[in-house]
């Protein structure tokens, strides 16, 4: 019997065909390397949001302050509620109220959609390209964060919807005392329920793990590589992930411990 040979070699049968190229810049999104650029850039936008969100929330620790209302009266309100109003009033009177906020929100939604879409299509590509080993793999460089991106991502997405329903829309899991604009009160009411606080904590750990890989990975995807600074990239990602984790976890803990509460 002749030795078994392959009729064709595997270079003759690509897994996928080259597609007709779309005009620039859409053609970037047709390739995986281009999609990784999109994923990194949208990741940076989302990271920016997460950092601002955390820093803004630190205002719960400022408690109540006195301020001058638009009606010209001295009123006492929670600092974070005033900040919430300020966000709606951004760039007024250049733009009508909430316009800039909505522009920012739409930008974030678009970034999130692209981040998700590129993640899904790249995952699909990877799953169809790899053949699983029958024996146990021994990972050397891949860490828990890099291998769990496909899990932490969906957890964050689902939690985002839950979090919006709970605190922004006041539907579903929102507390019965929810009221639009009362950022401080809503937060305290929501997080004083231990179940909700635990979900919040678990999902923020997932976010931290996701950021730990993402904030390192984006440098490679964007081709930001300089031998002088390369060793800082892991530290940057770890520091950023930890900063966000500590900041975010402080809120439910402070509320459950009674440090942040309602009169």
């Amino acid at each position, binding site marked *: 019997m002749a030795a078994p040979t392959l009729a064709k070699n*595997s270079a003759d049968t690509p897994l996928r065909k080259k597609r007709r190229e779309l005009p620039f810049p859409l053609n970037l999104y047709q390739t995986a390397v281009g999609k990784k650029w999109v994923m990194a850039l949208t990741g940076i936008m989302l990271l920016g949001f997460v950092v601002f969100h955390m820093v803004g929330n630190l205002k719960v620790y400022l408690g109540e302050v006195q301020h001058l209302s638009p009606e010209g009266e001295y009123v006492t309100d929670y600092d974070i509620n005033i900040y919430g109003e300020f966000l709606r009033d951004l760039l007024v009177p250049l733009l009508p109220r909430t316009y800039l906020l909505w522009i920012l929100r739409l930008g974030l939604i678009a970034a999130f959609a692209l981040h998700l879409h590129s993640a899904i299509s790249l995952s699909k590509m990877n799953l169809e*390209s790899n053949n699983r080993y029958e*024996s146990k793999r021994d990972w050397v460089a891949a860490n828990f964060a*890099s291998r769990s991106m496909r899990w932490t991502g969906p957890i964050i997405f689902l939690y985002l919807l839950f979090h919006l329903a709970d605190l922004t829309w006041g539907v579903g899991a929102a507390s019965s005392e929810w009221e639009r604009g009362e950022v401080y009160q809503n937060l305290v009411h929501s997080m004083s329920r231990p179940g909700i606080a635990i979900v919040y904590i678990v999902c923020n750990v997932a976010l931290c793990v996701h950021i730990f890989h993402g904030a390192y990975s984006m440098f490679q995807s964007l*081709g930001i590589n300089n031998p002088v600074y390369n060793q800082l990239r892991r530290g940057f990602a770890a520091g950023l992930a930890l900063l966000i984790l500590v900041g975010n976890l402080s809120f439910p803990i402070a509320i459950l411990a009674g440090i942040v509460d309602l009169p």
Partner: protein
Amino acid sequence: MSKILNLTLQVWRQAGPNKPGTFETYQANGISDDASFLEMLDIVNERLIADNKIPIEFPHDCREGICGTCGVMINGQAHGHERGTATCQLHMRKFSDGDTIVVEPWRAKAFPIVRDLVVDRSPLDAVIAAGGFITAPTGTANDANDIRIPKEVADSAMDAAACIGCGACVAACPNSAGQLFTSAKIWHLNSLPQGQAERYKRTEAMVETMEQFFGSCTNHGECSEACPKEISLDFIAYMNRDYIKAKVKNRRLASQS
């Protein structure tokens, strides 16, 4: 003093492409720890032949880490646990007496199994072919110092050129991505003056051919750890940068760079 090892092997046996495969267990007793991994397989094969059994088919050629022919998954790591060595350079003294060693072929959709531990790696050739040629002046050879290249650049190009095309990077990658190989081949030419003329054309063609066969990079870093030539992940970043530049510059602009 060399020691004698008694080992248990679990080797993937598969009669041909698209045939079912399974792990077979073999006793490899009385192996000198001076033997290389491939020599150990030779000894096992000689015993199989003496028993009228079909020997284990495994890829090998130069046996000194320069041709890139050898390569198997050893205990879940491409080219075994020793860093910066190909399978042929892995010595049995890195194992202990009584060890069980699991040997599996590279696995990736682009690398179908030919038989036992041998896979077809021709998609790597397709990536090289897509890169085309460099505009090398033919005729009389230049003076050696005609083209001045800074030492750091020459070093970087040399580091990239060290890739032997073994495919361990693809095999080690959870996504079966071909980034480390492709970026090494791209950077070897893109970093040098001789490679500038076709720099962006080459990057575009090689990346897009790579993506026809392989998965996409998620920056795990397994490839560089598995690589017998310790090719750096940096080249992947350089490739990503050049690919976007290639797309942003249209052909006419590329001619100005």
